[in-house]
């Protein structure tokens, strides 16, 4: 193997990668927050809405879960302008990520809501809790506790799949790496470092999520 590693080019441009890392975090977090709103609406529609709404939510969830994110991205970025809706690469990336994670999170939130037994609500009321207290202690908190781990892993999956939006030249970590690569031709060194950054991000986020879980849920559960 006659190859000399040159990690120097990566360190010379560390600020480009740092900026890309920040954009990846920003993009993923925005998509997750907006996707959660979609998911709550979707889950409510699926569990409580009339039949046509339920059918619509089903169609949305199945369509997204059974097609690749890359194709959804292309359809939104290349297809929608042809249909009259123009947007920048970054807007298209965010939109595609929201649409995508919204479908997966809809299923998670729906499962969380359906997990709460009617009898629990009735028991809460029978014990003299006011309706708002029932909602808080009997529905919201247990539901959040059940779906929290699934939502956390969904966020990490979302963050990792966000690297795909570099294909439409939306700005984030992988795009920063591609840019650096086309200037220095040190592809292997750059992608090794960027892969390590993604790994560090996943580990940091799952660690943080677990700490939050211990602090918020486990302790209040004991009371």
């Amino acid at each position: 193997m006659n190859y000399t590693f040159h990690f120097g080019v990566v360190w010379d441009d560390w600020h480009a990668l740092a900026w890309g890392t920040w954009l990846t975090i920003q993009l993923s977090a925005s998509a997750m927050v907006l996707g959660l709103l979609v998911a709550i609406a979707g889950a409510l529609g699926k569990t409580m809405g009339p039949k046509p709404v339920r059918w619509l939510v089903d169609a949305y969830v199945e369509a997204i879960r059974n097609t690749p994110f890359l194709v959804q991205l292309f359809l939104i970025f290349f297809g929608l302008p042809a249909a009259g809706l123009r947007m920048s690469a970054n807007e298209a990336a965010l939109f595609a990520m929201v649409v995508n994670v919204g479908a997966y999170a809809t299923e998670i939130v729906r499962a969380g809501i359906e997990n709460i037994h009617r009898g629990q609500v009735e028991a809460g009321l029978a014990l003299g809790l006011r309706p708002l207290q029932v909602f808080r202690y009997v529905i919201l908190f247990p539901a959040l506790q059940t779906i929290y781990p699934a939502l956390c892993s969904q966020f990490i999956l979302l963050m990792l799949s966000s690297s795909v939006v570099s294909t439409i030249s939306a700005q984030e970590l992988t795009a920063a790496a591609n840019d650096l690569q086309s200037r220095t031709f040190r592809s292997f060194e750059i992608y090794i470092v960027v892969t390590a950054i993604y790994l560090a991000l996943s580990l940091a986020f799952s660690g943080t999520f677990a700490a939050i879980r211990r602090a918020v849920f486990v302790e209040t559960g004991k009371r």
Partner: protein
Amino acid sequence: MFHHFGTNDFLFLVAAIRWTLALSAIAFIGGGIGGLVVALARTAPLAPLRLAATGYIQLFQGTPLLMQLFLVFFGANMFGGRIDPLIAAAIALTLNAAAFLGEIWRGCIEAIPRGQWEAATALGLRYPAAMRDIVLPQAARIAVAPTVGFLVLLVKSTSLASIIGFVEITRAGQIINNATFQPFLVFSVVAVLYFALCWPLSLLSRHLETRFGTVSR
């Protein structure tokens, strides 16, 4: 310069399905063998093996598949010469699938009640025989549904091979789009083709879940 999307274009996309399927099949077989090794190591009675398997899973589940693909593709350059996109994609997807299947199957192995191990030991079976004859056959039943579910993920993942230039459905869509410039139509057809591959698998997985999911209880 551009022509209208016609039957030939449609047939070109449909024909590309075989490359998506071929890549999925290679990755599933390779990943299945690797996944079994990972799952066995992850549940092994030896701590170093468990640690190595955990690290492997963490590494592949904690980084983007696109980066894994790039590293194989560009990494091959270090050994001189360009690598065929199909081979690069097959290697990356196989390594990736091994991690995911390893983690899924670890869960299935661990779902087998301890009593089964104790009974096997009481009958005089050592670890290899207990694993092969008692635990794995039961774990396999629970594993069927999530494994089919993973297949959906794998078929979708093969679309990333288009980024390094392998002509499967997505890349075929890009080629047709460059010639017709009807992106909404072309990528809708591409999406429908993926849906036609993945949806039956999703339904099958759900059906198997209700059928096999609770058998061992």
